[in-house]
């Protein structure tokens, strides 16, 4: 019984639509859970700046406030270990998701970022049997997720030797930054067949290609609505085909249920995996229809979903 338990969400960034969707999902699902009396409280906390140090301080404050469990989307997989250790020592359950932490005492709901990179190249291999030149748009230098996805992409390319990465820019997971970086490098690149991305940057890349008057390559999309809408537009106009890989922001709700289960005394393995969200040519319309204008394609999880993820991992 967890009716008197209090769970906190520690979030390190709120400055993009993905994080906003994540917070909205959290609010919807946990709000219901609190109303139903499943837990006593489920408060969300966000730091003013996306920094390890601030989040570490935040976690320490949450410990002081006596939360029973802290659900973390971490700014860094290692940098919070000190604070997480303190939380565990104080008897607080720590569940990390999306940005996971490596401290052994915490639970991890991981996305296989490496795989997320690799499937993009594998998809391109099916579409472009003859291969060709690729452009890679990376995230933010020095951040774990960027490194993991890029690692997957490069592994994919080395396994599919018909592809070569001709250019690589950092788009910081933002449309306008990606647009600018791609526009700068594009003139000096040969014909680009495909663009491998990290999500949130596909639309910016498309804009840059359009502005430069180049042939539109296959741009792997993320889950922002504008990316999907652009894809739909192109699909209707020129039968443009691509795919989208991303993480559903609603994974925060899965983490919530996992924390609830741990508090309930259930035996939960420390490492859980969620599949990433894949949208194909066929599921595009359905996903687009359920995605809010300007928002992010999303999935929210229920207690049952969480239980089945746990059981799978057993």
């Amino acid at each position: 019984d967890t009716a008197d338990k209090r769970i906190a969400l520690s979030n390190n960034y709120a400055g993009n639509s993905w994080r906003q969707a994540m917070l909205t999902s959290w609010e919807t699902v946990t709000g219901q859970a609190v109303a139903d009396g499943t837990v006593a409280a489920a408060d969300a906390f966000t730091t003013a700046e996306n920094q390890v140090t601030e989040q570490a301080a935040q976690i320490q404050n949450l410990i002081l406030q006596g939360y029973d469990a802290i659900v973390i989307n971490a700014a860094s997989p290692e940098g919070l270990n000190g604070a997480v250790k303190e939380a565990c020592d104080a008897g607080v359950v720590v569940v990390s998701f999306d940005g996971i932490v490596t401290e052994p005492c915490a639970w991890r709901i991981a996305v296989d970022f490496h795989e997320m990179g690799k499937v993009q190249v594998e998809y391109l291999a099916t579409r472009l049997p003859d291969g060709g030149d690729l452009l890679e748009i990376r995230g933010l230098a020095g951040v774990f997720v960027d490194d993991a996805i890029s690692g997957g992409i490069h592994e994919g390319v080395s396994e599919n030797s018909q592809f070569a990465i001709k250019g690589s820019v950092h788009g910081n997971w933002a449309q306008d930054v990606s647009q600018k970086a791609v526009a700068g490098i594009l003139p000096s690149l040969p014909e680009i067949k495909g663009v491998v991305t990290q999500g949130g940057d596909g639309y910016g890349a498309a804009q840059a290609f359009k502005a430069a008057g180049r042939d539109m390559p296959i741009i792997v999309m993320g889950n922002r609505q504008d990316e999907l809408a652009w894809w739909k537009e192109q699909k209707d106009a020129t039968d443009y085909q691509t795919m989208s890989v991303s993480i559903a922001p609603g994974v925060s709700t899965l983490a919530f249920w996992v924390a609830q289960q741990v508090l309930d005394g259930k035996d939960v393995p420390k490492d859980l995996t969620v599949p990433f969200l894949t949208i194909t040519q066929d599921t595009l319309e359905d996903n687009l229809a359920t995605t809010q204008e300007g928002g992010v394609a999303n999935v929210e999880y229920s207690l049952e979903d969480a239980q089945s993820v746990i059981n799978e991992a057993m």
Partner: protein
Amino acid sequence: MSLLQKPWIWSWIGTLAVCLVIIGISGLGAGTQVLSAALSFGTFFVIVAIGQMFVVTLGPGNVDLSIPACMTLASTVAMKVMGGSSTMLLPGLLIAIAIGTIIGLLNFGLIRLLRIPPIIATLSSSFLFQSTAIWYNRGLRVKPPEPLADFATAKLAGVPLLAILVLVLTVIMHVILHHSLFGRAVLAVGQNSRAASLAGIKVERTRLLTYLTSAVLAAICGFFLAGFSGGAALNMGEEYLLMSIAVVVIGGTSVAGGFANLPGLWGASLFMFLLVTMLNTLGLSAGIRLILTGAIIVGVIAISGRRGRT
């Protein structure tokens, strides 16, 4: 004063050098395309940097850190109000400008009434504006009206239309800086605000107008940037914080206050864009790229070495 002694010349020399390297690597055709892209993107830096320049010229400690938040708030609200409808274009622009005005007034109020040092006043207020933007539409990315997007991306003979307009704005601001009362007042306050006040300059009015200019230009920049990149995002202004300062100082404006120039803003904006592009084109790793970016900036500044000014 010979050309080489102009404070802005070094940003242009840097731009030229980087340009030559890019042409050397990718050929003349690619070079001109890169230049066109540089104009497109550099334009946005220039808009905010003009405002930042006037603020920095007010003297030590004056800097506007609320530019990114102002861009975000003004453009998210404007985009949502317009809701993609082209008839709402003008109201949208006016709303963006109104928000810029309010932000400028607020910043100045904090600085003047609460006597908070500008750097902290604008940093603190930027958190408030960012929160307001989040609260207002939770980070949804609303598409700009079609005509706005077309306008923001339009080109005249390969030259971005917006760049031409901002060039006109630059010339106007140049005249204001060097040949108008307001400009004279800003330069005077930046050198010695006590003396300025005793010479009959309305120091506080000058400060107010300066912070207002900065915020309104940031709002306008946000508005057109949203049009250019297909919508307003919560993080759209992030890189404009450092960039607006970098462009101003690399362009030769003195952080000690009292000296400013506008040609340097264009030189520095193009330089910053081309530098990143050049390093991207060279295909270097992120670490090396960052190191070279920094080393080249420091190098350009060190060579230009403004020794005369103490």
